[in-house]
């Protein structure tokens, strides 16, 4: 699965992608020298809701929007900064992502393809902005569904926060998902499940079990993510390039209703484990999918 090798001829020190802040993540995915930030810190569009609750704002609201090129093609990267409020989605940070995707859609509809990448690093809705966080996530989802008809929408879940809540649905709507072993993808975080359903349902402190359930390796093995890469900026960049090269899939994962209903029907809820799930949820269909690529617009 991990086919994205370094392009350097000799072994070099890897640059960790996980350790990069959002701005540098976006920069490292764009072609060298093309990074241009939109609504950056100097524009100072901050959350109007956090100060009312005694929380200090950040000038970019924890979300970096950058334009540039990827493989020479116009691109936009939306990178969520996990260091601010756990990457949570507020009115401003979420609107930045939604608006960026909508502008990419506008360009695509005019025949000018823009390659969109979303770097998910988020626990979901920012609770201090509750209903507006949820609202902007619905808008992000609407934009992804409309945009991915024109161009692949590529999602990256590098870690260490992972991707949870409503944003896990947004990730699932992406054309391709690139993950690392350290990236987790789930709707409800382990703590939330323990809280809501009890420790007998899931012991959130059992790290190994949590990784087995929702870690990047398992998600790739069960075809809920597409590409597993090492924590290496070159590898992540190569995987993103490869995803765009594949073009728009004939059927996005979230459109494959019968395939997944059929898989679900084969699962016995009483006995299923992460290992046995792999027998039913696997890449056979993925491979068939690869032969059915639509021509990219």
């Amino acid at each position, binding site marked *: 699965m991990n086919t994205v090798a370094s392009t350097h001829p000799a072994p070099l020190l890897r640059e960790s992608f996980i350790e990069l802040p959002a701005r540098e993540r976006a920069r490292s995915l764009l072609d060298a020298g093309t990074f241009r930030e939109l609504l950056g810190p100097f524009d100072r569009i901050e959350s109007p809701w956090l100060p009312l609750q005694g929380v200090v704002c950040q000038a970019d609201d924890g979300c970096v929007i950058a334009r540039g090129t990827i493989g020479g093609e116009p691109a936009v990267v939306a990178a969520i900064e996990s260091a601010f409020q756990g990457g949570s989605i507020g009115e401003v940070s979420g609107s930045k992502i939604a608006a960026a995707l909508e*502008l990419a859609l506008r360009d695509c509809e005019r025949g000018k393809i823009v390659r969109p990448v979303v770097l998910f690093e988020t626990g979901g809705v920012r609770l201090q902005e509750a*209903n507006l966080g*949820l609202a902007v996530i*619905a808008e992000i989802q*609407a934009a992804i569904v409309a945009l991915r008809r024109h161009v692949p929408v590529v999602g990256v879940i590098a870690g260490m926060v992972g991707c949870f809540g409503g944003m*896990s649905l947004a990730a699932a709507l992406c054309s391709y998902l690139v993950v690392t072993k350290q990236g987790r*993808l789930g709707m409800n975080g382990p703590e939330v499940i323990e809280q809501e359903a009890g420790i007998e349902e899931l012991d959130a402190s059992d790290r190994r079990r949590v990784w087995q359930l929702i870690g990047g390796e398992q998600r790739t093995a069960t075809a*809920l993510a597409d590409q597993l890469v090492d924590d290496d900026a070159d590898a992540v960049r190569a995987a993103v390039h490869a995803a765009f090269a594949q073009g728009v899939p004939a059927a996005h994962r*979230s459109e494959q209703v019968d395939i*997944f209903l059929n898989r679900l029907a084969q699962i016995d809820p009483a006995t299923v484990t992460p290992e046995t799930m792999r027998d039913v949820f696997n890449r056979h269909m993925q491979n068939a999918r690869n032969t059915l690529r639509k021509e990219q617009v």
Partner: protein
Amino acid sequence: MSDVQPSRGARWFRALAGESVSHAPVWSADAPLGGETAHFFAVVPDPSNRFPRATDNVVGLEQGWRLARAVRDAMARDEASGTRRPIVAIVDVKSQAYGYREEMLGIHLACAAAVDAYASARDAGHPVIALIVGPAMSGAFLAHGYQANRIVALDAPGTMVHAMGKEAAARVTRRTVEALDALGETIVPMSYSMASFARLGLLDQLIDGVDADAPDAAQIERVRQVLTAQIRSVRDDGRRNLAHRLESAEAQKNRAASIEVHRRLAEQWDAV
């Protein structure tokens, strides 16, 4: 509400659409509305669901995928006849399903499949209306209702939209439920009331004077008229995206930051 009583979603489904052609937990039926036929969908409790964490009116694995199937089937029927008929999502969903099986088997994708189906129906020109008759919570509402062109709600006890259940939110933010309610008075997006949700510009109509649990014929007829008017509004508008949500007077006031982000990002998009 006890287990033997039908849920609000089930009552309103029967009131508006009659008997479902599909079994629980996803009900669907085509029924007359405003001189045409509309597609109705609801998520209802399913005590015998094989996933033990998804027996209530929650959106779990089967709910998400079967909603997607039902909405896409309706689209396919209309495709054949060449008419894009309205879709009404009757919303009474108290949460997504919380369980380790759900996470393992990809509840995020199941819910995304429902989002995808509703968004695709809207993009294809079906007027999609969400009718909130009970809780419309968090990921469950994202999957069932939040992709609608228009959102309307009964102004009745028990209808609410929120990102997290009140008790859980109180625990997580280390506040009491009372303190949380007080906070909602001043911080509009934190509020659990439908009136506050309307102040965010996200609600197109709050329907008052209707008994949500036991509506009479006149009240049901009023709700039909609201749905019909909203469908007309969608068709008159002509746009298929969600831009409408940022245009009301309420949005101008309480989503000013969203509007500012959209405006200034557009200005900088092509700048050199």
